[in-house]
């Protein structure tokens, strides 16, 4: 039976079942992003004190749904698509157990809908963290459990597909680096889902009365094994996408596969331990546990991110210099295709993830200076830098690439698409920067009313905090417009885009296979081992001097910012 299709533009091979599942998961992710974005707009317009749009109960409901739809449903649906691309497509093999793939998709879909229904019924405004003893409706927890089970099935289909590829010898040598990045993401996902199961199943039983008590501290520790690790899946996945796009757009090869794989190994070993920074101010947990898991283990994971942050742009620089862009330190960067949203979105992702998400993450993971900003709006500023400008923009970049390749539709509104990464990235960067500032002034996260109207113990934030929140919210509105443009272009392309293949109809945009004639029963050619690097190719950073300078700028920025935070701690917490 004909099972494989070759993309005439890129030469990529698509197994029919994998192709349908990639489409279905990507479309579900886009729907979650739409819901999350609309709710995000309501949240920023409420935290913007001059507007203060929603009443308290609706604000907490919108914030709960925004958090879960953005941080869980949008991201993990898309990551399922990434896993199928990284296994079946890149390894040129059939997908293992496609029927279970549909079980994965349906469980995740039912779970996502169920949790959203629970939230919008109004009885589950418990925030994404759903800390006990706050109690949500039982179907809030059940939806999350079903979603997690679906995602776990997706991970094991991914590992099964690796076995299929190896057994059928669809590739030579080691798996490609992008697939290795997906392996890292899948490993972190398994730990994430296991942690979720350990805590959410008893919490569900507690919500229906079978368990009398859940210990609040136990819940916090185990829940963050899921809550933060789920965001570490993103890191591994979006770094894999950085490498993929560097290869696709520039023909770039990693500066050193060994170093890049070693950096991924550091993620596998240490990245998940960073969950502990959420517990840094909790009593009852020893300093040894906190210090090991954050100030030692986490820095090794940060080291891995710094390696990727050096090698991805470094590989682009080497490829560009190979094409003759050799003038000065940065001609390779100036002459990059800035009007191609695949590249611009990916590069903004890389820069903002490093400069904003990475540096603030280290500050949050340091036990002492964490005290300045713990539970302030600095925290959502940090994870909007990592998950929104970092992960989401990387996912947007690869979506632009996949519209013609996977969906066989031409992208609509190409002029607007050139601008979209700048609108979205610019708006969200403003949001992040000004929320960081407001957090440093102590503005609390999550709280509906900065004025504390009617509170028994009032508190007056400085006027600057209101200004910073207002400017940040303005950036958030621009970001939502940018996200809306992304969805307009991508979903509009699936519906109205010119067909690049006559059978690419509306149903085919949402998961149905193309016409049978597009597929062949001939197996793809074996993916050859990567060719040796050309003679004279070195792996030192001086081969990419521009990137080396950028890395030094990052380092200096980090050192200065780190010092400022310690200085600030000394001024706000005077012990003498």
């Amino acid at each position, binding site marked *: 039976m004909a099972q494989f299709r070759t993309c005439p533009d890129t030469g990529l091979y698509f197994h029919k079942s994998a192709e349908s599942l990639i489409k279905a998961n990507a479309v579900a992710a886009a729907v979650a992003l739409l819901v999350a974005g609309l709710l995000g707009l309501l949240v920023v317009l409420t935290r913007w004190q001059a507007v203060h749009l929603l009443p308290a109960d609706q604000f907490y409901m919108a914030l709960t749904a925004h958090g879960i739809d953005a941080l869980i449903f949008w991201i993990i649906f898309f990551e399922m698509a990434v896993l199928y691309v990284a296994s079946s497509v890149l390894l040129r093999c059939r997908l293992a157990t496609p029927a279970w793939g549909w079980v994965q998709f349906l469980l995740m879909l039912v779970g996502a809908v169920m949790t959203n229904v629970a939230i919008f019924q109004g009885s589950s405004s418990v925030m994404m963290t759903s800390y006990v003893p706050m109690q949500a409706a039982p179907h809030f927890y059940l939806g999350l459990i079903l979603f997690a089970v679906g995602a776990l099935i997706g991970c094991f289909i991914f590992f099964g597909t690796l076995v299929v590829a190896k057994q059928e010898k669809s590739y030579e040598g080691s798996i490609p680096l992008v697939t290795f990045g997906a392996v890292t993401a*899948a490993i972190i996902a398994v730990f994430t889902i296991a942690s979720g199961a350990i805590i959410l199943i008893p919490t569900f039983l507690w919500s229906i009365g079978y368990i009398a008590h859940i210990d609040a501290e136990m819940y916090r520790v185990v829940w963050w094994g899921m809550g933060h690790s789920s965001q570490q899946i993103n890191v591994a996945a979006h770094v894999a996408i950085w490498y993929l796009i560097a290869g696709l757009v520039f023909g770039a090869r990693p500066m050193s596969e060994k170093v890049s794989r070693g950096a991924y190994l550091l993620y*596998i070993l*240490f990245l*998940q*331990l960073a969950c502990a920074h959420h517990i840094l101010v909790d009593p009852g947990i020893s300093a040894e*546990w906190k210090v090991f*898991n954050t100030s030692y283990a986490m820095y090794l994971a940060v080291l891995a991110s710094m390696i990727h942050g050096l090698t991805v742009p470094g590989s682009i620089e080497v490829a560009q210099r190979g094409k003759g862009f050799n003038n000065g330190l940065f001609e390779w960067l100036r002459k990059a295709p800035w009007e191609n949203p695949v590249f611009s979105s990916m590069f903004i992702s890389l820069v903002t993830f490093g400069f904003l998400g990475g540096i603030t993450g280290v500050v949050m993971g340091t036990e002492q200076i964490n005290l300045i900003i713990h539970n302030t709006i600095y925290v959502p500023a940090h994870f909007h830098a990592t998950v929104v400008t970092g992960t989401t923009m990387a996912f947007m970049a690869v979506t632009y690439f996949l519209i013609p390749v996977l969906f066989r539709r031409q992208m609509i509104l190409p002029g607007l698409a050139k601008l979209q990464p700048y609108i979205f990235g610019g708006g969200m960067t403003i949001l992040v920067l000004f929320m960081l500032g407001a957090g440093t002034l102590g503005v609390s996260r999550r709280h509906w009313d900065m004025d504390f109207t009617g509170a028994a113990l009032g508190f007056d934030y400085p006027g600057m905090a209101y200004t910073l929140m207002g400017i940040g919210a303005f950036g958030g509105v621009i970001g939502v417009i940018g996200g809306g443009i992304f969805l307009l272009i991508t979903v509009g392309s699936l519906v109205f885009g010119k067909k690049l293949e006559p059978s690419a109809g509306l149903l085919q945009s949402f998961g149905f296979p193309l016409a049978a004639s597009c597929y062949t029963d001939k197996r793809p050619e074996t993916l050859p081992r990567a060719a040796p690097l050309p003679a004279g190719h070195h792996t030192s950073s001086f081969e990419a001097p521009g990137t080396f300078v950028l890395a030094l700028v990052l380092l200096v920025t980090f050192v200065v910012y780190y010092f400022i935070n310690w200085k600030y701690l000394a001024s706000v917490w005077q012990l003498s």
Partner: protein
Amino acid sequence: MTETSKKPGEDQEERIPAMQSLLDNPFLLLFIGVAMPTVFYIVWGIMEIVTIPVAP
């Protein structure tokens, strides 16, 4: 220059470095990647909590 005699098929059976063997084994990586945070974060963290004395 000296020449070393090679048996037929020796080139194909090139010894794979230990680190590469590790990186080429996704299930070993899965085990390590789940065991590390389970031991250092979950189990150690839970042990800390259960040893907190109960308030009188």
